[in-house]
């Protein structure tokens, strides 16, 4: 391990879409956030609250309108392989085999084929996918594809994993299974995770810390430390207490977001 440990620092980060036009939209309003090395931070909020926008800015895919984002003390100016992103839709390239997909980032770096395959095999095996190396992405189930996407991110040995509702398109059982995987991956790789979701259950199951967003414009309503033991027991009283606390925190925001969407549609 190097000195770089996957710490993130956001100061006064603001994003205005379409600045200077009549459709100006304040998506993220002046937020501060620190992610400690190896920490699992979940951003929770109603849809359209700007949590994904903040994630894209940390990834370097979008530039903040104002404010500063640092990864390991270095200002973020663009995407970098130290911060790997996992998207909601399965984003495996259909023209590559599963092994080639997992090794894609390594290929961009010029790693030779045999070595890429070896890395892919090892990672896929830890994700329970040791036997699909030469399969086609279309031959996999949604859950398998998302695991392969995680393996692809891990192949880059990122210090930060950025996950944008990665399990939202999966059924409940698969989702629970993948949450176990991601908790285990975090444990083994030591990477920090910044995870976006609108599912309270997912947040409670995974997070060290939960950032609750307000409806648009995105601000932090509360930051909740999660002090439950791992693995999390969804039947424990403490789990339920936290869950209910989050439901209360979110209720108003969900209503506001819903009302705004209805208004915008008319």
């Amino acid at each position, binding site marked *: 391990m190097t000195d770089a440990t996957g710490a993130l620092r956001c100061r006064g980060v603001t994003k205005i879409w379409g600045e200077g036009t009549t459709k100006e939209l304040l998506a993220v309003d002046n937020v501060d956030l620190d992610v400690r090395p190896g920490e699992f931070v979940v951003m929770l909020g109603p849809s359209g609250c700007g949590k994904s926008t903040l994630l894209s800015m940390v990834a370097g895919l979008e530039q903040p309108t104002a404010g500063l984002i640092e990864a390991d003390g270095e200002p973020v100016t663009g995407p970098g392989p130290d911060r790997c992103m996992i998207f909601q839709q399965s984003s495996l390239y259909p023209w590559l085999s599963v092994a080639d997909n997992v090794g894609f980032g390594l*290929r961009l770096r010029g790693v030779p084929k045999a070595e890429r395959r070896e890395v892919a095999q090892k990672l896929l095996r830890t994700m329970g996918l040791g036997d699909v190396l030469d399969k086609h992405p279309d031959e996999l189930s949604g859950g398998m594809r998302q695991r392969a996407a995680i393996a692809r991110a891990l192949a880059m040995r990122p210090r930060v994993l950025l996950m944008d509702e990665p399990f939202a398109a999966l059924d409940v059982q698969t989702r629970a299974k993948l949450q176990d995987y991601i908790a285990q991956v975090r444990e083994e790789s030591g990477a920090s995770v910044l995870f976006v979701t609108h599912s309270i259950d997912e947040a409670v199951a995974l997070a060290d810390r939960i950032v609750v967003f307000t409806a648009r414009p995105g601000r932090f309503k509360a930051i909740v430390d999660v002090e439950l033991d791992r693995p999390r027991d969804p039947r424990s009283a403490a789990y339920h207490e936290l869950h209910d606390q989050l439901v209360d925190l979110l209720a108003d925001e969900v209503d506001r977001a819903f009302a705004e969407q209805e208004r915008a549609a008319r």
Partner: protein
Amino acid sequence: MSKTAEIAVGRARPQTAAARRKRSWARKTGVAAGWWVASVALFAGLWELAWAAGWAPQLLLPPPHIFLQNFSRQAKFFDTSTIGQAQAAPVVAVLTTIVATLLRVLAGLALGFVASLVTGTLITQFRVVRGLVLPTLTLLAPISPIAWLPVSIFLFGIGNGPAVFMVFVGVYFVMTLATISQINGVSATYLNLARTMGASKRQMLFQVIVPSILPGLLQTLRLNLFAAWMVVLLAEAVGVGSGLGQVVMLARNTFNASLVFFTMTLIGVTGYLLDTAFRQLQRRLLWWQPASNGGSR
């Protein structure tokens, strides 16, 4: 004892499955071939009937049994060697003519494909190129290749040049516009993903954009294949002096109806084979695409 029986069954099963697959494939192919024969026979039969019954003009609509009958006499018209020189064998003369036409089409298609890919890519990557080139291109695109015929002769005179140019014009504009819309339609997730993994512009282009747009482009190219096959005949009829198009024109000028239909048959069959070959190429190249999209899955 029951164990050996099981093993024997287990071993026998894959063979029978393979044999069954093979049989069903043979049957499918047989049925398809049957329909082909029936369809062509029906068409030819009606024609023959109409001719024999005297409903069709006897001289102007000679039925298949007449225009296909004397191959070597028909083939004589395909021979471009001048009088006094050694005459080529009939089959050789016909094949040479077909190949000459085919090569013109393929050259035009290949040039058009590559040029449109390059133009389309430059237009999407550089704003200046887009601003300077796209408006003119959109104005030139709706002009029929036939209107380009005089231009192609002014530019290239007589020979292969004008025919290749006509095919090129026939695919270039359409394919350039298709390339632009395909590139604009590449999934943002595919691009963002490559960006987060540190892809350079060049890597983005060759490892993400090109494979993403290839299925759509080949589909467009295949749709334009027939158009190219038609345009080349026109160019040959006017400005080349050899090829299938020239033979059709010769047949028209000499009022040789038999030769017209003989050449039309060759044009139809060759065009069909060209399309079939292209489909095979697509299947090989696009192995990850479903069959409905030109792939082999």
